[in-house]
């Protein structure tokens, strides 16, 4: 029982980060109809910024840990948003709804940014000090307070996004564009501006995931790439462009990863995910919650 609770807690904690990451990817797909292979670099950039600002803030400036973390978190979001803005203006806006073109562009960005990170930061993993020390126990399972807070913050952001997409005017235009771009434009929705907002929100979500993940795992320059394959599996399972699908898919993949990883081993768990995807594709090619394709 304790063990299962522990594994379930792990699932929720990994899953919450997967959900944030996959949500950004699926949102960008929904609005722009492109798959952003450079999504992991937003995640990596945020994690690297958090780690370097923390080391600078705590080490050099002598700021308190939680204050420098908040500062780092904020800076990471701003910088990633800026990167997102630049790559959108100079690249992605020419490849809206062009799957192959945008794939190549995002791969080019991935190479360029990953190479730059490696030169700026080197290959050595860095860890940051605990922002919130201490443990809690829950039904006999123990969990660091830090991970619990991470989970709560990630859930709040996810909830916030859900409200944004389903309860606000911006969300309505995002959904309208995702559903049918021409019809949305006929209703006076500025497609290009909405696409830019969608892209920036997606990049910010990846940055949140990266900044949160930096607190619990050592940061390397390729940290985002590991998330990318899993995020792809998540959005295939959930259905491309579906917010709820990304949430369910993220939790399901985390469940397989933490239980499968414990009872068998991590690579068996990854293979199991792939088998799941294959079965799903045979039964329901458009994903659990995806819309039927033409």
């Amino acid at each position, binding site marked *: 029982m304790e063990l299962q609770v522990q594994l379930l807690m792990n699932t929720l904690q990994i899953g919450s980060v997967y959900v944030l990451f996959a949500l950004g990817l699926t949102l960008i797909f929904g609005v722009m109809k492109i798959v952003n292979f450079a999504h992991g670099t937003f995640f990596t950039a945020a994690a690297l910024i958090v780690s370097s600002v923390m080391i600078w803030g705590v080490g050099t400036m002598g700021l308190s840990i939680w204050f420098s973390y908040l500062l780092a978190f904020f800076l990471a979001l701003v910088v990633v948003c800026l990167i997102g803005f630049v790559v959108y203006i100079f690249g992605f806006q020419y490849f809206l709804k062009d799957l192959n073109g945008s794939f190549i562009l995002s791969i*080019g960005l991935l*190479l360029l940014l990953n190479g730059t990170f490696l030169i700026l930061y080197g290959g050595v993993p860095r860890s940051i000090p605990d922002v919130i020390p201490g443990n809690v126990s829950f039904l006999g399972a123990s969990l660091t307070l830090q991970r619990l807070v991470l989970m709560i913050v990630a859930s709040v952001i996810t909830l916030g996004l859900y409200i944004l997409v389903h309860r606000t005017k911006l969300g309505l235009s995002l959904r309208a564009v995702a559903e049918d771009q021409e019809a949305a434009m006929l209703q006076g929705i500025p497609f290009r501006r909405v696409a830019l907002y969608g892209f920036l929100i997606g990049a910010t979500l990846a940055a949140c995931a990266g900044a949160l993940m930096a607190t619990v795992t050592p940061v390397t320059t390729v940290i985002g790439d590991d998330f990318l394959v899993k995020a792809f599996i998540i959005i295939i399972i959930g259905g491309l462009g579906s917010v709820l699908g990304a949430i369910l898919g993220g939790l399901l993949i985390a469940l397989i990863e933490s239980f499968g990883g414990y009872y068998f081993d991590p*690579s068996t768990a990854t293979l199991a995910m*792939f088998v799941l995807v294959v079965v799903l*594709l045979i039964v329901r090619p458009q994903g659990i919650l995806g819309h039927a394709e033409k």
Partner: protein
Amino acid sequence: MLRSNPGLALCILIALAAICFALFSGDPYYVQVVIWVFANAVLAVTLRFVLLIGELNIATAAFFGIGAYATAVASTIYDLPFFISLLAAPVIAGLVSALFGWITLRTKGPYFLLISFAFTEIVRLFYTKSEFLGGNSGMIGMFPPMVLNDYYPAIAITLLAAILFGLYLTERSNLGRVFKAIQNNEDIPRSVGLNVIGLKILCFVIASTAVGLAGGVHAYTNSVIAPADFTFFVAVLALAYVKIGGEGHIIGPIIGAATLTLAGQFLHSFGPYENIFYGAIIIGVLLLMPGGIIGLGKGFIGSSTVRRDPH
């Protein structure tokens, strides 16, 4: 056929020259570079072959690896003769691709792209976890038989050139036209009674078999293969060759592969800057010359004919 097509005659001449170079040149390094150029050309051309039906197939990298591993297993574990081991590569790659295509080609566009990407990474993961396949360090000891050793580079180049030629002929045949028709609008070929899914699978299997054979050749050329040689990055580079050469004609990816492979020989010394360079080239070409090198060439020829028109 050759008289009416001087470009094809020139390509065949270049291939023959490369084979002669492999037979008579004393410098193994340059022979190796020539084999790389041809192998990369096959990767790029097979990637483009699946683009004929409109799908971007990252699994090109996976089937290149499957071919290489099939040959390695046949020759080092089962001690099969050289040509049979080499034949194992396209056969196994073809069979696996038929199954994979049958499952996944019901999807298209982004779903197919993502699933082929995931497949590539997972096949690689499978190699690293299989003791049988040598795990992370891969497999060693694929040598051509002693008698053939001196001729092996020439055999490799002949096989790779034959693949390129075969794919060219397939594209020019009626089958190739049907593939392009599927890309344009798959409902129209379906409306005249063609089995579109079956044809898509056929296209995918042809490309995977071809790239599988190239993988087998790669295994014998290198004598060492490892999971890290077959990441999705192989397909990304192949795509870069296609984009830089131009995807309008089969010669585009070949020119792109030759250009970038030769340039890459100088770039290895750049270390971490190598990836930045590739990234910058891909973005630059995509934004500045969407038709690739042959697009530029066509533009040049086009503008010169326009100027000549009034006379």
